[in-house]
């Protein structure tokens, strides 16, 4: 049975077509003028990529900040739930998901069935969200991926003192105009970003292994590396008796986890009809 999940975020729209356990197609696009336009566009793209007929799709679940009012969606589900289900589908041992999107950051705790146990969310402050990295990458004239790879070359990252994105931007501008190496600036940015996220993780009652990162920011290897180091040393080391690393890599594009979760929920829903 074929289902579809559509995740309309603040900066990107994602869609996944799922046939039971097989991902048949996936797509990520930049948002259009309105959430509805974004959903339609990404849906059409993922349809043509999968070469599946519109009628074959039995159920569509939409999620993300623009999830409501999508005319062709059968149901809308919050992105917290979808990320939990999507991550569980891919990595059944995962208990903590850190999802960093374009304009928010979520920490989600799930149980062994993928059900939500606890979550925290920051959507009020741009520090610690994808926007922070976008602003900084712009100053350095780098793509988000480059911001990650370049930072790995740094031996002495700059230190960013401000929390606020606006103040941090001024700091980075100053570093950049006074001749600091791009790699060191990039590493400092990624580290500051990871620190913001860890501040939020700290507020979760308990961080259970395994942990994974989803969302667009997971593609920045620098942030992912810093996050892994900080979380493993701060929250997992003493109690962890695991033989494997408690930090798991997403086996698919980490940006589609929410859309995938939506497609999984669509499958469950349809079967219950």
């Amino acid at each position, binding site marked *: 049975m074929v289902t579809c999940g559509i995740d309309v975020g*603040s900066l990107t729209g994602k869609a996944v077509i799922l046939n039971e356990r097989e991902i048949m197609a996936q797509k990520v696009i930049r948002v259009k*003028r*309105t959430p509805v336009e974004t959903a339609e566009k990404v849906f059409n793209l993922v349809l043509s990529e999968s070469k599946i007929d519109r009628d074959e799709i039995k159920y569509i679940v939409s999620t993300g900040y623009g999830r409501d009012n999508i005319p062709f969606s059968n149901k809308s589900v919050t992105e917290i739930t979808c990320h939990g289900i999507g991550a569980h589908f891919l990595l059944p041992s995962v208990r903590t998901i850190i999802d960093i999107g374009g*304009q928010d950051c979520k920490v989600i705790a799930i149980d062994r069935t993928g059900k939500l146990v606890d979550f925290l969310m920051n959507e*009020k*402050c*741009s520090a610690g969200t994808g*926007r922070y990295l976008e*602003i900084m990458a712009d100053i350095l004239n780098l793509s988000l991926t480059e911001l990650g790879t370049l930072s790995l070359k740094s031996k002495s990252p700059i230190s960013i003192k*401000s*929390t*606020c*994105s*606006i*103040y941090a931007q*001024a700091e980075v*501008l*100053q570093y950049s*105009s*006074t001749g600091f190496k791009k790699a060191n600036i990039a590493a400092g940015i990624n580290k500051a970003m990871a620190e913001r996220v860890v501040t939020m993780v700290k507020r979760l009652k308990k961080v259970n292994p395994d942990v994974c990162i989803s969302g667009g920011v997971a593609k920045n290897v620098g942030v992912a590396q810093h996050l892994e180091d900080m979380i493993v040393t701060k929250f997992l080391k003493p109690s962890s008796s695991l033989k494997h690393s408690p930090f798991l890599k997403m086996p698919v594009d980490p940006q589609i986890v929410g859309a995938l979760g939506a497609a999984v929920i669509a499958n469950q829903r349809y079967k219950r009809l």
Partner: protein
Amino acid sequence: MSEDKYYLGIDAGATFCKAIIINSDRNQILSKALSLIQGNPKKAAEKCIKAMLKEEKINEKELKKTAVSTGQNGNKTAIGKKISEITCIGEAAYFLNPKTRIVVDVGSFSMKVLKMDETGTIKDYLMNDKCAAGSGVLLELVGEGLEMEVDEISEKASESNNPIQISSQCSIFAESEVISYKNEGANVADLLAGVCYSVAGRIYPLVRKVDKDPQNVAFTGGVALNSMIVKNLEKRLNIELLELGIEPQYIAAYGAALLAKSNSGGN
């Protein structure tokens, strides 16, 4: 009659450097200048001084000896003594209008509220320098996003009959919110009015934190140039703001010049 002496005050803020030269005789502003910081406060300060001295026959060396620098980048000007902004703003506001008890200063990056007693002594102050919400940066971002000058915002906003409420706190998210409303076809005047109200709405709680029943309040800093924000703040506080008779963005520089004078023995 002794010969005139001159004193220099420099306020190197986050975005602009402001400088003032006063005449020792009646503390009158002889000359003032403003220049963009652009990552180099020292250069910006020198640029201001050069512009001010162009038409005045004043000894630059003598002037710098007694000068006072203030502001976020005040210690980077390498000119004169550094004195805190709070002190400078309080000094100037009290001098210009001795009725002043509270000064709200909102610049491009941060806001401060200070409270004085009837002698002009600062009793309490609060600063928001951790988060840019409520500072002038939102006006700059929105100006850029809508491709208009910052000083056009309040005039355009005053045409609004139906301000749109901006719900984001973070200035960066608020700018995105404004742009997406615009893309959905919102009226620009209504949007800008919403932006002005949102800035005033962030300033108001800080004032109330310093004083539960604020009276004799002066509003300074670059953001006070926006008349929509001024009016909305007056409405929220239910008072009329005091007149200081100075361009609001020069208040700290003027205070610095007054302190330069009193530090070197002038009355």
